[in-house]
């Protein structure tokens, strides 16, 4: 359910759609393939996916794609409007905005990637443990979660960054700390719905330990809704990261982070609109991409649909 590596050849297709797979691997691939087919039916989700893939490609090939050094100031060319030489113009230090946006992609990806791989597992673990054991474990874990949920995300992130000091690492950390509680809630809700189901009790009667039940039987039931939620949240994370950057608490100059770039361009917004608008559009497109992708994934991964 993680990556889709498919080429559509006819022999392969038969292998994938077989009703009687010959190996664990084939069964897994077949399942992924069916999900992929369903996903491709959703045009908007495909657009979202291409935006996200585009973001990844831009990140990887940034040095090849960017026409200029994103950090090289050229004071003779300050605040040039978009033109043949600088497609998106230049900023107040004469840096090429296109190159800065291209290099900025890697920070965006870094932020959402790191937050997703730290916050989601923490939320999953907390939520499944709370839902599975119930009682005082549930009460303790969920009250802690509630404390985090009680603050608006951005305010809490601001507080953390203020305490930890500005910088992109601390911004990521702050976003991760504020991101896990909703995942814990989702995982707990899913856990509670499956906890008493026959297949969990059947596994218990096979002698499966509590740890085995949580990781092997309950977590797979939570992962779909979590993946969807994380993908949908990525847009929000990008916005918070940009917000922190905008307030000067995230990425520090001269780092070409999109939020910080919008902040820089704010002073010239009326006369030289492109300085703030171009990174703003980049934020918009990527956020939209993650949202569309999340919506499409929801259709595919919906626990009812797949079974």
């Amino acid at each position, binding site marked *: 359910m993680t990556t889709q590596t498919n080429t559509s050849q006819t022999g392969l297709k038969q292998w994938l759609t077989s009703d009687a797979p010959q190996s*664990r691997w084939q*069964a897994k691939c077949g399942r992924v393939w069916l999900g992929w087919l369903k996903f491709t039916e959703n045009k908007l989700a495909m657009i979202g996916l291409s935006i996200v893939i585009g973001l990844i490609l831009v990140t990887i090939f940034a040095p090849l794609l960017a026409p200029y050094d994103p950090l090289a100031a050229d004071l003779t060319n300050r605040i040039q409007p978009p033109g043949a030489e600088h497609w998106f113009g230049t900023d107040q230090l004469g840096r090429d905005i296109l190159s800065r946006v291209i290099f900025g992609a890697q920070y965006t990806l870094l932020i959402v990637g790191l937050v997703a791989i730290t916050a989601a597992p923490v939320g999953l673990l907390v939520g499944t443990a709370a839902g599975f054991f119930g009682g005082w474990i549930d009460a303790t874990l969920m009250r802690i979660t509630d404390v985090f949920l009680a603050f608006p995300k951005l305010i809490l992130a601001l507080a953390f960054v203020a305490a930890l000091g500005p910088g992109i690492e601390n911004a990521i950390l702050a976003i991760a700390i504020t991101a896990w509680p909703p995942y814990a809630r989702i995982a707990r809700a899913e856990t509670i719905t499956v906890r008493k189901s026959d297949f969990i009790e059947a596994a218990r009667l*096979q002698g499966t330990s509590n740890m085995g039940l949580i990781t092997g039987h309950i977590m797979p039931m939570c992962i779909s809704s979590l993946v969807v939620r994380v993908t949908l949240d990525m847009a929000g994370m990008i916005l918070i990261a940009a917000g922190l950057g905008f307030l000067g608490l995230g990425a520090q100059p001269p780092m070409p982070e999109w939020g910080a770039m919008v902040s820089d361009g704010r002073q010239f917004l009326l006369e030289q609109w492109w300085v703030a608008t171009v990174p703003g559009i980049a934020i918009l497109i990527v956020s939209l991409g993650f949202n569309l992708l999340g919506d499409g994934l929801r259709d595919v991964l919906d626990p009812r649909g797949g*079974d």
Partner: protein
Amino acid sequence: MIEINKLNAWFDDNHVLKDVDIKVPKNGSFGLVGESGSGKSTVLRTITGLVDDWEGEILVNNKELGPTRDKTFYRLVQMVFQDPFGSLHPRHTIDRILTEPVNIHGLGNSDARVVQALEQVGLDNSFRFRYPHQLSGGQRQRVAIARALILEPKILLLDEPTSALDVSIQAEVLNLLSRFRRELGLTYIMVSHDLAVVAHMCDDIAIMNHGRIVERATASQLADGRLEHPYSQQLYKAAGGYDRAVVDSFVDWD
């Protein structure tokens, strides 16, 4: 093989089992009949440790059970659930469902065991790597039986194993279960709402109502309709199909 004395159980404040006594000899087959809420399934769930709040004496193989069950217990006693759609993990392949118990109990040779277990229940190897949703109800129930048998237990608890199946599939599964009792020397406790199924499968039968056993009968007594308690008589009549006059004689037992 199994002896239960004065078993009482509670769900919160509900007293769901009241002084239940059951004795099943080795290779015997005991049937519990009742309507929903009679506590018949709770008896099985208490034996397997899925009910926390109980009192009384449960002896399995002459050994009294404590409050928790360990791995050796699950090698001896296994259970088949009613709903073949709910008792198999929707995201696990049949292969994984069958391999897991083998690995948990460290039996080794899991490949051969899985193939053999599938063969035992009449499923060929092409089913091995499918997901439960790719199987019919009857095939799923066969997988559930294979999962219970793969640990080579001596006792099988059957919780309405065929009530979710079509009658033609029910016949196949019941025959399969009868064959395992004969060939593997298993001991059964079977729970059902269907008198005919229990009469066909079991030697001794107990009829339950509101947590209590109201009547005990042998299969031949049941065959002749020699039942004394009015509740059992009502159940017996109800099994005969729709008859307007008979329905009028029904009394509510709640």
